[in-house]
C-alpha cells in the first residue's frame, strides 16, 4: 500500500466518506421511517431522527402484518425466505461438489460433453427458461411449496466450475496416497476432498445464500398463497395498495428486516469467506 501525503490523503478520505453516505443513507432513512408515524410520512413531514414507534411497528410487522394488502406476518415471510435461501445454498453446493468430483476424478463415457452441457447452462438462468420451468414445476404439483421454490434454482454451473477448478489444483499424489492407504472413492471424497473444500464451500454459501434470499421473479410466479410468500415479494405487495394509504413504517421495517439475515451470514462467515476467496490451503 502506498502512503499518500497529507492533502491527497484527505481527498481520498472525503471521496470514501461520500461513497459511504450514498450507500448508507437510504438504509438509514428506511430505519428512521420504520420508527415514525405513518401520517407524518404520508404528509412528507418525516424527521431525520428516530421516532417513538419502534417497538410497536416492529411487533406489528413481525407478528401481525399490514392491515391492508397482504395480511401475512413478516415473521412468516422471513421463514419462507430463509428456508428457500438455505435450500438453494445447501442444495447447490451439494449438487455441484458431487458433479465436479465426478467430472474431475472419474473417467466415464461422454465426460467432456457432459461437462460442456453443464457449462452451457450458465447461459440459461431461470429468467430465460421461465416458461418451461414453470410448466415442469406445475406438472410436478410443486407450486406453493418449498421444493418448487428451491429446486429450479439449485442446478448451477458456476458452483460446479468453481469446485472443478479447485479440485484440479489438489495434487494427484493426495489421491494416490489415499488409494495406497486403502481409501475408496467415497472415502477419499469424504475424508480428504470435503475438508479441503471447506473454505470454498463457505464462500459459496455466503454468495448463494444472498442470491437465494434476494430471489424475486421466481417466487412471485409460483407462490399464490400468502403463507408461502417470501419477504422480497411481500415488500412489493405491501407497497401497492388500491384504496388505502401505504403503511410505510411497516414497509420500511420489513425492508430493514430483509437486510438482516444476509448481513448476519456475511458477518458470521466473513473469516472463512475471505479465506475461501484468497487463500489456497494445500
Amino acid at each position, binding site marked *: 500500500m502506498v502512503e499518500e501525503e497529507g492533502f491527497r490523503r484527505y481527498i481520498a478520505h472525503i471521496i470514501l466518506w461520500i461513497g459511504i453516505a450514498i450507500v448508507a443513507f437510504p438504509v438509514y432513512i428506511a430505519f428512521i421511517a420504520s420508527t415514525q408515524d405513518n401520517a407524518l410520512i404520508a404528509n412528507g413531514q418525516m424527521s431525520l431522527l428516530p421516532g417513538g414507534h419502534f417497538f410497536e411497528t416492529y411487533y406489528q410487522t413481525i407478528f401481525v402484518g399490514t392491515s391492508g394488502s397482504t395480511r401475512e406476518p413478516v415473521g412468516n415471510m422471513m421463514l419462507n425466505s430463509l428456508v428457500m435461501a438455505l435450500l438453494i445454498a445447501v442444495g447447490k453446493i451439494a449438487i455441484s461438489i458431487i458433479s465436479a468430483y465426478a467430472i474431475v476424478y472419474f473417467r466415464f463415457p461422454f465426460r467432456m460433453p457432459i461437462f460442456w452441457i453443464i457449462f452451457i447452462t450458465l447461459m440459461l438462468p431461470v429468467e430465460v427458461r421461465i416458461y418451461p420451468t414453470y410448466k415442469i414445476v406445475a406438472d410436478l404439483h410443486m407450486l406453493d411449496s418449498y421444493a418448487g421454490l428451491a429446486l429450479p434454482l439449485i442446478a448451477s454451473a458456476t458452483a460446479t466450475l468453481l469446485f472443478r477448478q479447485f479440485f484440479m489444483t489438489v495434487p494427484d*499424489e493426495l489421491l494416490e496416497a489415499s488409494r495406497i492407504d486403502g*481409501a475408496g472413492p467415497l472415502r477419499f471424497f469424504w475424508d*480428504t476432498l470435503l475438508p479441503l473444500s471447506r473454505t470454498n464451500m463457505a464462500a459459496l454459501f455466503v454468495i448463494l445464500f444472498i442470491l437465494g434470499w434476494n430471489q424475486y421473479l421466481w417466487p412471485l410466479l409460483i407462490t399464490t398463497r400468502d403463507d408461502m410468500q417470501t419477504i422480497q415479494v411481500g415488500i412489493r405487495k405491501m407497497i401497492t395498495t388500491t384504496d388505502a394509504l401505504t403503511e410505510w413504517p411497516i414497509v420500511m421495517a420489513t425492508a430493514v428486516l430483509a437486510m438482516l439475515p444476509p448481513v448476519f451470514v456475511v458477518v458470521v462467515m466473513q473469516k472463512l469467506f475471505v479465506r475461501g476467496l484468497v487463500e489456497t490451503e494445500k
Partner: protein
Amino acid sequence: MANVTLRNVRKTYPGGFEAIKGVNVDVGDGQFCVLVGPSGCGKSTLLRMVAGLETVTGGEIDIGGRIVNQIEPADRDIAMVFQNYALYPHMSVFNNMAYGLRNRGMKEAEIKSRVDEAARVLELTSMLDRKPRQLSGGQRQRVAMGRAIVRQPKVFLFDEPLSNLDAKLRIAMRVEIRKLQRRLNTTSIYVTHDQLEAMTLADILVVMTGGQVEQVGNPLAIYEKPATTFVASFIGAPPMNLMATRPEEIRSQLAGSAAADAGILGIRPEDLVITDQTPDGGVALPLTVEAIERVGAETFIYGSREPEEQRVAATPGELPPGEIIVRVPGTEAPAIGAKIRVAALRNKLHLFSGDGRTRLEA
C-alpha cells in the same frame, strides 16, 4: 518380508508411447533396490507400476510370490513415500499416520501404539498434534516415512523422497533412511536421479535409460565395471572421461591388446595422475589446463587435448568434446594454460565398442 520380481514388465500408453520396454529386476527379501537414471527414463513410472498407481500393459509384477498386476494398491501390502510427501493437509500428524490403519479397521489401541512407536523412532512425538503446514520440510518428510512405517508393509516404495530438501538435510535423511531400512529389514525400492544417493543407498542398483534397464548390480561393481558408456558417464561424479580411440596417439599406446580395436576409451577422473611417464600398457594424454575447481579436499582440472581435431564427443550432454577432467587430491594444481601430461594405469582403462553399448575386457 518379500521378494519383488519384475518379469519383462512393459508399459505402453494409449497413444502408443512405450515408457517401459521390458524390464527384468529381482529384488531379494530385505534388499534396498535403487532405480536411477536421467529424468524421463521411466524409473518413476516403473515404481508407480509396482505401487499399482499405473496399469501394467505387459509382463508380471510379483510381490512376495503373488502376481499383483490386477490388485489394487491398497491390497498389495506396499507403502509409498512421495516426492512432495502427499500428507493430508487437514489432518494432524497423528491422523496422517493413522489414516491407512483406520481404513483397514485396526483397533484404536493398536493404532495408537504403532503410531507412537513410529513417532518415537522418527523423533516426531512432540509434533503429533500439529498440522503438516506447521512442519518444516524435513519433518514432513519424516511424517511421510512414518505413514509408511506404521503399516508394516512388505515393501517400501520411495519416489525421490529427498529431492525437495536442501543439500545438508538430504544427506542427513539419506543416512536415516538407510539406517531405518536396515533395522526394519523391509524390502525397498527407491527412485532417484541423484547418482550419489543411488550409490550410497543401494544394495542393488538398477541404472535405467529410455525405458530400459542399462545395468543391474552391486553399486561398486557397476562403478568398477560399467557395462555401457551411458552407465560409465552416469555413475560417478564427475563423470568418466570418454574418448574415441581413433586418435592415433591413444591407439598406438593400446596396440598389442584386444582393446586396440575398441571404439571408445573411458578413464575416470580419479584414475588419472599427473606424470611424465607412461605406465606399462597404460595411456598418457597431453593436456592444456583450461579451468580449475578447488573444492577443498580435492581439485578438478579441466584440460583440453591436443591437437584440436582429435576432440571427439563423449555421451551427449556430458563433457564438451575432447575435455578431460582430472581429479587430484588437495589444492595443488597447475596454472591455467599450463601444458601437462596425465596418465592412467592399464587396469584403470574402460573399453567399449564403438557404439558404446558393449564393454570390452582388456
